C-alpha cells in the first residue's frame, strides 16, 4: 500500500470515529483545552484558594483584624514574630494563637492580611467590571455604527496618550475629601479608586472588541438577522455580543491583575485607603519603615499580591488558548 492510500484510509477511519462519537458541546471542548494547559490549571486553583481564604478565612479564624489591645495587653501582644521564626531563633517573641505574628499596635497580621485581601480583590473585581462595561460599550458602538467609529477611536487614542499613573495619583488626592464627605471615608475611597482604575483601563478592551465586531458584523448570520428586520439593538445583544464574549473574558482576567497592581501601587504611594482600612498595598507600605527588624510584614502582603496576579495571569493565558477555536483541538 502506498503512503497516500494509507493516509486516506487513516482519514476515513478518523472521520468514522468522529461520526460515531456523541456530539460534544462547545463548553466541553473549551474545558478540555483549558485542562491541558498546566499553568492555567495551577493558576485557577491558586486563585480559587486565595479567594476562598480571603472570603471564608475571617469567619473561621479566631482573631479580629480591627482589634487593638490596650494597656498591658498592648505591651504583651505587640511586635510578635511569626511562629516559623522559632526554627532559627528560639527566643523570639511569639504565640501559637498568632500564627503570623502581630504588628506594632498588636493587631494580628494574618487577620489583617485576610481583611486586606478582601478589599484588594473587591477593588480589582469592581474596577475590572467597570472597565469591561466601558470598553465593551465603546468597542461595540465604534465597531457597529460607522458614524461613531472615528470619534470614539480618536477618543481611545487620546486616552492611550494620557500619562495614566500620574493622573490617577493627582485625581486620587484631589477628589478624596469631597467623596469622603459624601459617602464616608472608606466607601468614598473605594468608589474613587474603582472609578479611577476603571476609567483609565478600558482602552485595550475597546480596541479588541471593536476589531472583532467589525469582522462579525459582515458575517452572513448578521445579514440574515438584519434582513428579517431585527433592530440594531437586538442584533448587538443577541448576535454580536455572544460572539465577542471570549476576548472580553480574556481581557477581564488580565484586567483584574492590572487593577490589583494599580490599587496596591496607589496604596503603596500613600494615595489609597486610610491606614486603619488595610489593603495588601497599604500593609506593604506600612511595613516598609520597619522592614529591617520585621521583614516578614513586608514579605507576606507582597507575596500575596504577586501570587494573585501571577495566578490570574496564568488563568487568562489558559483562557485565551481555550476560547480561541483556532488553537483549540490542536
Amino acid at each position, binding site marked *: 500500500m502506498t503512503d497516500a492510500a494509507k493516509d486516506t484510509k487513516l482519514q476515513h477511519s478518523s472521520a468514522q470515529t468522529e461520526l460515531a462519537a456523541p456530539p460534544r458541546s462547545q463548553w466541553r471542548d473549551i474545558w478540555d483545552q483549558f485542562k491541558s494547559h498546566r*499553568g492555567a490549571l495551577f493558576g485557577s486553583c491558586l486563585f480559587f484558594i486565595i479567594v476562598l481564604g480571603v472570603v471564608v478565612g475571617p469567619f473561621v479564624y479566631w482573631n479580629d483584624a480591627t482589634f487593638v489591645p490596650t494597656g498591658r495587653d498592648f505591651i504583651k501582644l505587640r511586635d510578635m514574630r511569626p511562629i516559623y521564626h522559632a526554627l532559627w531563633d528560639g527566643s523570639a517573641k511569639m504565640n501559637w494563637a498568632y500564627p503570623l505574628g502581630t504588628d506594632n499596635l498588636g493587631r494580628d497580621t494574618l487577620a489583617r492580611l485576610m481583611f486586606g485581601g478582601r478589599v484588594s480583590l473587591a477593588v480589582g473585581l469592581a474596577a475590572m467590571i467597570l472597565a469591561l462595561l466601558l470598553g465593551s460599550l465603546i468597542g461595540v458602538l465604534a465597531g457597529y455604527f460607522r458614524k461613531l467609529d472615528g470619534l470614539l477611536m480618536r477618543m481611545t*487614542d*487620546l486616552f492611550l*496618550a*494620557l*500619562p*495614566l*499613573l*500620574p*493622573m490617577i*495619583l*493627582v*485625581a486620587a*488626592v*484631589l*477628589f478624596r*475629601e*469631597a467623596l469622603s464627605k459624601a459617602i464616608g471615608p472608606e466607601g468614598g475611597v473605594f468608589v474613587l479608586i474603582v472609578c479611577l482604575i476603571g476609567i483609565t483601563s478600558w482602552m485595550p478592551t475597546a480596541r479588541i472588541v471593536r476589531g472583532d465586531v467589525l469582522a462579525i458584523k459582515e458575517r452572513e448570520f448578521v445579514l440574515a438577522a438584519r434582513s428579517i428586520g431585527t433592530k440594531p439593538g437586538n442584533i448587538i445583544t443577541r448576535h454580536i455580543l455572544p460572539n465577542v464574549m471570549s476576548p472580553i473574558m480574556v481581557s477581564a482576567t488580565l484586567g483584574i*491583575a492590572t487593577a490589583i*497592581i494599580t490599587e*496596591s*501601587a496607589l496604596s*503603596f*504611594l*500613600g*494615595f489609597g485607603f486610610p491606614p486603619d482600612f488595610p489593603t495588601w*498595598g497599604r500593609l*506593604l*507600605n506600612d511595613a*516598609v519603615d520597619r*522592614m*529591617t527588624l520585621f*521583614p516578614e510584614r*513586608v*514579605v507576606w502582603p*507582597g*507575596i500575596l*499580591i*504577586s*501570587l494573585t*496576579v*501571577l495566578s490570574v*495571569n*496564568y488563568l487568562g493565558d489558559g483562557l485565551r488558548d481555550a476560547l480561541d477555536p483556532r488553537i483549540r483541538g490542536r
Partner: protein
Amino acid sequence: MLTFTVRRLILAVPTLLFISLVIFLLLELAPGDPMAQVPLTVPPEVKEKMRLALGLGEPAPIRFWKWLVQFFWIEPQVLVDHVFGTSFSEGDLRVISWQTRSPVMDIVVQRLPQTLSVVGTAYIVAILIALPIGIYSAYRQYSWFDQLGTFVSMVGFSVPPFFSGVLVIVIFSVQLGWFPSIYDTTLKVTDWDSFVKQLQQMVMPVMVLALQITAQLSRFMRASMLDNLNQDYVRTARAKGIGEYTVVMVHVLRNSMIPVVTVIALGIPSIFGGAIITEQVFKVNGIGQLLIGAIQANDLPMVQTLTFIFAVLIVLFNLIADVLYGILDPRIRYD
C-alpha cells in the same frame, strides 16, 4: 516618509493641546483649595491678595492660555537663552512652583539627570538581557530554557516593582549588606572609589526596573523570532548552505528586530511612569519623586507641568515608533 513624519508632527499638536486641556480641567474641577494650608489667623483680604499673587484671580480660560504661553513660548526662550547666552526671555513670567517659588522647569532640569541615569541604564541593561533570551528561547522552542524564560517573564509581569524593590532591599542591603538601600544623589564620581559606590547604589534600582522591561521585551523578541523562523526565506538561506549562525543572527534577527525596535521605542514613556514607584522605593530624587511631593503639597503648576511632560514623552515616542517602523520595514508605506 518625510510627508508622513510632517503630517504626524502636525497631528501631534492638537493631541497635545487636548491633553493639556484635560490635565488643566482635572486640576481645575478638583475641589481643593491652594490656600487651605495657610493659617486661619490670616485675614480673608490678605488671603485674597495671596490668591491674586498666585495668579488665581483670572478666569479659567485665561489661566489656561497663560500657562500654554508660558510653557510653549517662554520656556523654550529660556532654554535658548541658557544655551546661547541671549536674552529673549528677560522680564517674562515663567511657570512658578507654589512650593519653592522658583521656576518649575529649573527644578525639573535639576532632577532629570537622576531619573535619566537610573531609567536609562535600566533600559539598556534590560535590552541587553532580553534580546539574547528571546532569541535563544525562540530558536529552541519548548526547551527547558524556553520554559524557564516563560516562567521568569510571567513572574516579572506579576511581581510589582514596589514589592521586588523592597524584597531586594531586605535581601541585599539588610541581610547581606552588599548595596546601600538609599540612592545618594549628592555623590560625585571623582575617583575609582566613588565610581564603585555609584555602581553599588545603581545596581538595585536598575535591576528592579530591568526585571519588568526584560519580562516584556524577551517575550516580544521570542514571538517575533518565531514568526520569522518558519518563513520561506530562512529555508532558502539554509538551502544555499549558509551557516546556521549567519542564518539566525543575520537573516532572521534583522527581520525580527523590526517590531521589537518599535516596542522598545513605545516602552520608554511607560518606563518613566514605572520609575515613579521605583524612585519612591529607593529614595531617588528624580522627577517621579518630584511629582509625588508636588501632589502631596498641592503644588498645582508643578503637577500640571510634570504630568504634561509625561504626556509629551508618550506622544513623542509613539511618533518615533511609527516613523521607525516605516524606515525599518520597506514593505510599509504610509503615503
